[in-house]
């Protein structure tokens, strides 16, 4: 996926937290992950390892989350991207950044729009397909009706950001503790 946008809290991030994260990263694949990063090794962990972390295991969007933060779009995370992911999903990240990444996560077909198919996929993942197709249809219609401002029957990033700024729960739910 192009247009890589990453946030990494730079050297301002507490060294302790980075070590903690590296510990978690290392224990996912001890034989793959080096302990020494001075030579800038190019080590990426595959999607399957990362989505089995306890923090992500129960999340219906775990695959999309990892894919959104990976450079290649297939979910292979380097350590930088791993830290990026948890830093955006932490309490301290600003709302705008969370909105950008939330948009990426919910955009299943990666076309920079949340179209009806994206919404249907999101809903099915949320409810594990326990809603009837008519109910799904109705809910997606209502969602687009509520959030679409420019009338193109799908949600652009503007629409999404506008809507999410009015969602009071967003900051408290879009965060993972690690």
């Amino acid at each position: 996926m192009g247009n890589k946008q990453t946030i990494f809290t730079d050297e301002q991030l507490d060294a302790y937290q980075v070590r903690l994260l590296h510990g978690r990263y290392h224990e996912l694949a001890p034989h793959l992950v080096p302990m020494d990063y001075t030579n800038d090794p190019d080590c990426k962990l595959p999607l399957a390892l990362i989505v089995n972390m306890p923090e992500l295991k129960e999340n219906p969007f775990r695959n999309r989350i990892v894919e959104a933060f990976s450079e290649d779009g297939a979910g292979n995370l380097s350590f930088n991207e791993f830290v990026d992911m948890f830093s955006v999903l932490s309490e301290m990240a600003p709302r705008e950044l969370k909105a950008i990444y939330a948009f990426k996560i919910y955009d299943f077909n990666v076309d920079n729009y949340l179209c009806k198919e994206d919404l249907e996929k999101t809903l099915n993942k949320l409810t594990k397909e326990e809603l009837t197709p008519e109910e799904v249809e109705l809910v997606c219609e209502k969602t687009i009706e509520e959030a679409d401002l420019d009338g193109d029957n799908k949600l652009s990033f503007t629409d999404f950001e506008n809507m999410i700024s009015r969602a009071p729960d967003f900051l408290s739910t879009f965060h993972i503790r690690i």
Partner: protein
Amino acid sequence: MFSSLSRNSVNICRCSESFIESSGERLLHLTLSLNCNLTVNGTHEYCIIRNIIHCVRSNHIHLYFQVFYTDCSGKVTSNPLLDQLPSYQSLLYRRKSSAAGTKRRNSSRMRLGSSGSGKWASSTISRQEEKMAQRPIRELAKTMAEKRRDKTQRLEEACDLSSWRQWRQSTHMYLRKLKVESQELLLSLQLWRGDIHLIEGMFGTGILSYFFFLRFLVMLNLIIFLLMFGFVMLPIIIVPYVSGNTTYNLNNGSPCSVYPSSARRGLVIFHEYITDLLSGGGFLEQTYLFYGYYKVDKIQFAHITYNLPLAYLLTTLAYLLLSLIWIVKRSATGFKRNLVQDEDRFQSFCNKIFAGWDFCITNENAARLKRNSLLYELRTDLEEERIKQKIADRTRKERCRIYLIRLILNLFVVGVLAGCFYSIYKATIFSQDAQMNNVKENFVLDLIIEYLPSIVITLANFITPLLFSIIINYEDYSPAFEIRFTLMRCVFMRLTSIVILLFSLWSQITKCEVDPCVCGYNHLLYSCWETRIGQEMYKLTIFDSIIIAAVTIFVEFPRKLLVKYCECGLTKWWGQQEFAIPQNVLEIVYGQTICWIGTFYCPLLPAICTIKYFVIFYIKKVSLINNCRPATRPFRASSSNFFFLGVLLIGLALACLPVAVSVAQMNSSQACGPFVNYTKSWEVLPTTVSQLPSGVQTLLIALSSEAFAVSFFVFTCLAMFYVIALAGAHKKVINQLREQLVMEGRDKHFLIQKLCQAQSLSANKSSVSKSHSSRMSPSYHTSFSSNFNEGLFLAHPHPSSSTHV
């Protein structure tokens, strides 16, 4: 330097490299349009790389890819022009305060600016940048390598600046860092952080807000206790150490000031100590616990005279005011958010889909339950829509029938409430009479009689919610309104029962055999009536804590064991305990209301309540983790905070009422307490004011005169009308802006379509004339910057030609 996305993109880089070599160090804009096949997730989609922009500037080559997927027919589904629009760029990095460009604009300046007319754009952007304070690098959404480059660049720039600016910048950074660190330190010092973390992980954010609320009440009670202790108890305690002189309230021999001692004499059976402990009588009566002990009038310290009655009264007012301010401050954010969400539940579906899943959940059970609750919520919302439709379709006959039913049921509810209040009144009177008779029959029976009002109140508060939830089914409201209405009824029931108890006590206290009471109250039975009220409040608090603990131990744990090990139909129907947030919140608000009322009569009550809530936290936490499953009816974190504080505010308002009546209307008892020398407790204030210097006195008298009050009231009304008008105007403006936004979107699309048409015409013309020069591949166009003013361009994909590069 180039990030290679795939084989295809590497080839693209090679092509463009040769272009750069041939054109030297000029700013170039290249448009390459390629069709390449990419396999994505197992499906073949045509991927068109539309904009590949090279900037060549002193050996730095920045390569930006924007990859857009199209559907199989090759039609472009999103428009690259839209992504280059300044409004889109600014949206990506918009902050609350500033909307101007950011560091990214720095690099996009290189994109846009060409040697020609793009210069004006770049210069304005650079000016804006210099004006704006620099944002911390960590909050920019850029690649890691770019951020490191930015940081070194900033450091270099910093070195170039004058020392004054350097110092300013470094202090800014230092202060920001200090602020972040102090915030983190404050967060880590919070009480129960680890426990709340655990609960959040298991049950999500709805139940979490209940525990936050509990923590807030612990702090509030602690502060109230510190106030009372500091201003009322501490002066009395330190008198012998600071060699002060206390003037006690003298017994002036009138019959009103006779206070028979209630201490037990002679052989005391052990269980009587327990009775005393549980009822606040006996050995506890003449202690710091109750109002009656504070018989001090004035304390003479080295240089100042401490007026204890005044301090007592002012501390009471202070803690009520402090509670009010703190609660209002805490609920201000919730209230603002509630206002922003419009009356007609503005974005309910969007909120549920995009902000509904709690990412903190790590437990499989909790995940399943969250899913179920989301399902339930969505189905409820769809149901609401259906019901709204149904209500709109109701005929007149049906409407009359429904209103009639509602009227009858509301009358029934009022009847039930009246019945409960009457039974509380009767129980209180019976209890008081039985205590006055002083016939000690049986230890347990005596205790029950003492606690009779508490028992009746608890029973009433247990039965009425069940009754209300059954009744509401017949009233045919919408589901959301049903929940709220039942809750309101329960709140009213719980809080009014305390007030009824107090008023029934007062009716007893002011009822004498000879009709107008000699001392203003019944001095024979209630020589120190404030202590009696304090004892009742004390009993209520103790009983409340016992009930909460007992219900948890004797009802919830066995229920869980039953459901787990016994598989009969009854247990299945009963099911596992649900943590019902509203009922639990009402419980603790009830306790807090008692605390507010009782602190005037029983100054140590806030300390008892602090300990009580502290223990309740652990009881509830253990019960939650071991016995409960989350509520199937979801409780949103945002609105719940506002609901809790709203109910607390109602409790505070109801608590102020009895305190105000007793301070201003009732004759204070002449036998005990600090207000012996005054007829009513309130009289301390006017007496003190009359002893102040005359200037201050006239000022205070003027402030409390009718003229001032009326003009203040009129001014407040005017301010309120102004604010309401302002709010109405804002709403109108918001609606207008919303419509404008929609229009703007449509305008944008229209203009872009026109632009596309115009460019396709010119591109066709230029490609025809330049087809000789570009021989790389027949399928892409290259346009040099000299042909374009601002570097805004679009390349049309050719669905027919698919060249593999």
